[in-house]
């Protein structure tokens, strides 16, 4: 009997080994650290995009925590001498540092593995530009690729815009908003109309958050984009007129930054700024928007879920929601067509142990097809091709995007839509390719000619009031939008030694600006506000900030001159 059992066991073991032999090859796992991600999840990507990667490439991505303090996290990775397999950078300074330190794999050495990148003429300008500007100590090779290659100017909504709660605005009699400062009057009256949310929470004009701060109080400086001034792409410490007419330091006496600080200082004095601003994160602010605690937003996408159809505000008989209200003196920044991509980029770690798989993934990631499905999901769920070769939303597709719903694949390949609101799972944030000739109808479903836009009551009322279909249409017709020069994305300090010195200056000046800015917003009175501003200027000057300003002024002038050679249409 014993012998029989042992024989059976042996047989089972042998069968087991055999079945192992015939099983599919185990998937390769690559780690990814994406600084620009706004995803709060981490771990193996297991949504539909994870399944697509597994099916098509037999690769799964372990997504490392991004979110707050990403620069600190990057520093720790870099100091260890090894980056995760896939890295997304959002600061040029660190991209260059990683390339010079030899932490990124040279993509030119893998040209035959990356046909989607090197053989697509849509990428030529971006590749040439990045070889010229971001090579390893001037070796003229490619180590990273930008995102949003060829991304066109906005077609519907610009990224930054002045948005208010519509029903309250109507209740106020739709007054004209003349200047930035008038926004506070509007907010004050709105708060008076609705001092509390239905669940009894106090309302405010707006709330700030500090977890995206790097060199400045970012949410304060970002108001500059409503006035056609860049405070991010050239340098967070410089104000650059977006068409390239002038450039100056954010600590200049004339600087818009001071106006922005004063705006929030006033807001605080008048009790319109959420006093929790200093300790809130982006997610805290988003949930307060969802809850209806704020009246004003400066991003076209920052209002939590307040505008989601599922919440019911925008579709109500008397609709509500955040929507663009023009401010007379504002001219909003809009990006140029980004032939050389934007300043965010991706690279593959030189320490990657599975280079073949990493290159396979990278080649897939930079295919126009990938940008298309990352925007819309795989064919057959939210969309399908129609007879004319144009994508068309499916019934489920409309259901998902209008309800801001979440869906996932089942084991058997079917899918399920859940009532649960889509969790924040934008792993990659900006798509690698922004536009491509093979997809003339655009990557985003809302641009397709087949798309039935089915406006909400909010949109209908707003369109009737403003007389245009979209904010961009209105802005272009009335001069409230300014399209930027590509030189904004192309300003680089090339002298490595000078760059090191400037980085130290920007680090030290930045830390003073960050602290003093927040103090200025919460200053007790005008005198303290002015004293802090003066203190910030003096300290920056002592730290050698003039040198920084001069260097960037010069670099921007050079970029303006050179950008034309990369802006050739293909």
């Amino acid at each position, binding site marked *: 009997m014993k012998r029989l059992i042992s024989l059976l066991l042996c047989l089972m073991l042998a069968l087991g080994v055999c079945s192992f032999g015939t099983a599919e090859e185990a998937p390769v796992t690559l780690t990814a650290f994406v600084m620009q991600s706004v995803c709060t999840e981490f771990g193996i990507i297991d949504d539909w995009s994870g399944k697509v990667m597994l099916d098509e490439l037999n690769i799964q991505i372990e997504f490392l925590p991004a979110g707050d303090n990403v620069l600190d996290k990057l520093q720790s990775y870099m100091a260890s*001498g090894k980056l995760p397999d896939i890295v997304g950078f959002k600061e040029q300074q660190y991209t260059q540092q990683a390339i010079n330190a030899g932490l990124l794999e040279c993509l030119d050495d893998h040209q035959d593995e990356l046909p989607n990148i090197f053989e697509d003429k849509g990428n030529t300008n971006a590749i040439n530009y990045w070889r010229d500007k971001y090579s390893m100590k001037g070796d003229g090779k490619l180590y990273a690729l930008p995102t949003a290659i060829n991304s066109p100017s906005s077609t519907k909504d610009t990224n930054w815009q002045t948005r208010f709660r519509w029903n309250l605005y109507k209740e106020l009699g739709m007054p004209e908003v003349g200047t930035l400062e008038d926004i506070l009057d509007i907010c004050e009256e709105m708060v008076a109309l609705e001092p509390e949310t239905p669940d009894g929470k106090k309302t405010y004009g707006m709330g700030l958050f*500090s977890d995206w701060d790097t060199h400045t109080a970012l949410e304060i400086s970002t108001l500059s984009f409503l006035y056609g001034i860049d405070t991010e792409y050239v340098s967070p410490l410089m104000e650059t007129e977006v068409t390239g007419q002038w450039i100056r330091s954010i600590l200049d006496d004339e600087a818009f930054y001071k106006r922005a600080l004063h705006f929030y200082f006033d807001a605080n004095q008048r009790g319109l700024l959420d006093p929790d601003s*200093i*300790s809130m994160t982006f997610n805290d602010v988003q949930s307060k928007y969802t809850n209806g605690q704020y009246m004003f937003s400066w991003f076209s996408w920052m209002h939590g879920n307040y505008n989601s159809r599922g919440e019911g505000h925008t579709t109500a008989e008397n609709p509500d929601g955040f929507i663009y209200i023009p401010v007379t003196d504002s001219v909003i920044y809009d990006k140029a067509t980004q032939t050389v991509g934007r300043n965010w980029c991706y690279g593959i770690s030189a320490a990657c142990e599975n280079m073949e798989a990493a290159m396979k993934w990278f080649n897939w990631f930079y295919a126009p097809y990938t940008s298309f499905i990352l925007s819309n999901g795989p064919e057959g769920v939210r969309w399908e091709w129609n007879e004319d070769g144009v994508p068309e939303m499916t019934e489920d597709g409309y259901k998902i995007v209008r309800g801001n719903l979440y869906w996932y694949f089942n084991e058997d390949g079917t899918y399920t839509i859940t009532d649960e609101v889509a969790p924040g799972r934008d792993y990659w944030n900006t798509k690698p390719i922004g536009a491509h000739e093979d997809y003339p109808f655009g990557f985003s479903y809302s641009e397709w000619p087949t798309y039935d836009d089915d406006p909400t009551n909010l949109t209908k009322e707003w369109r009737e009031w403003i007389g245009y279909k979209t904010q961009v249409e209105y802005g272009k017709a009335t001069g409230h939008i300014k399209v930027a020069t590509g030189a904004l994305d192309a300003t680089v300090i090339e002298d490595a030694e000078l760059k*090191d010195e400037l980085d130290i200056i920007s680090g030290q000046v930045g830390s003073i600006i*960050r602290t003093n800015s927040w103090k200025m917003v919460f200053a007790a009175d005008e005198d303290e506000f002015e004293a802090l501003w003066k203190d910030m200027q003096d300290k920056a000057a002592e730290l050698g900030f003039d040198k920084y300003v001069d260097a960037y002024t010069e670099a921007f002038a050079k970029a303006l001159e050179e950008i034309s050679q990369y802006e050739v249409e293909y």
Partner: protein
Amino acid sequence: MTEAVRPPARKTAKGNQLMNGRRRAGRILFAMSAPFLIATLLFCYVPMFGWLYSFVNYKAGFSLFSSRWVGLKYFAMPFSNFVLRDEFLRVMRNTLITSGYHLLGSPLPLFFAIFLSEIKFVRYRKSVQILTTVPNFVSWVIVYSVVHSLLSLDGFVNHFLQMLGLTADPINFMATSKGVWITQWGYGTWKGLGWASIMYMSAIAGIDQELYEAASIDGADRFQKMWHITVPGLLGTYFVLLMIDIGHILSNGMEQYYVFENAMNHDKIEVLDLFVYNQGISGNNISYATAVGMFKSVVSLGLLFFANNLSKAVRGDSIF
């Protein structure tokens, strides 16, 4: 040659045995302490290699040897202009004051242990001890979130004050520089008191019970016994711990201050360890941060010698 002129050692069998026994015992003792020596070497001496980074223009990712040698540039930096000097002095002030509070509070665990040991109801004493020790194992991140939910504008305390009608508007306890040092000391004490008193509890257990009996016979009451027997019995332990604390006067650790830091309290809460982190990791200026960190080690060493000599002079007793 010397071998030849030396008189032959007179070895008895017994002497030999004794020597071997001692040698063996010494070896065993050495073997027992070896892991700790190795750990000290690994975690305290090997990292000193990192000091080299303060002499070069280091950027994360590059190797030490490919970085440009800059000599003492980063050591001179805090004194090169008034902004950095003021910043450095501010950080030193914060560090010393924070440590000062800590030193002033250092007798607290001693008295806590004494009073606790006087409690005769064992179950109660044990539960107090456990409850006060547990916070030591709670991470600062958790402590912060608990404090935040108590003290934030939407928090329990503000709701409570408003409910009682004591305040009209909520008070922003977290975003203020008022009383930062004392509140931070309070959080630290809440977290560490029970843990720090364990050492004293065991020292109390080691005091000879006959002393108490003799004192009772002489008519000493309870407080007299505490004051004349327990306290002197613990002073030795107290001074050793105090000296170690003085040696650490510039090391407040960074976690606590890191989680509680915001722009409003930044000027007062930024202690040296946090400053090093802010400069090095957040500010991408690792070389400067290393130089500042080294300064700390030098000062700590000096302070330790000072405290040791002081103890030798005052009490005739020292650690080395």
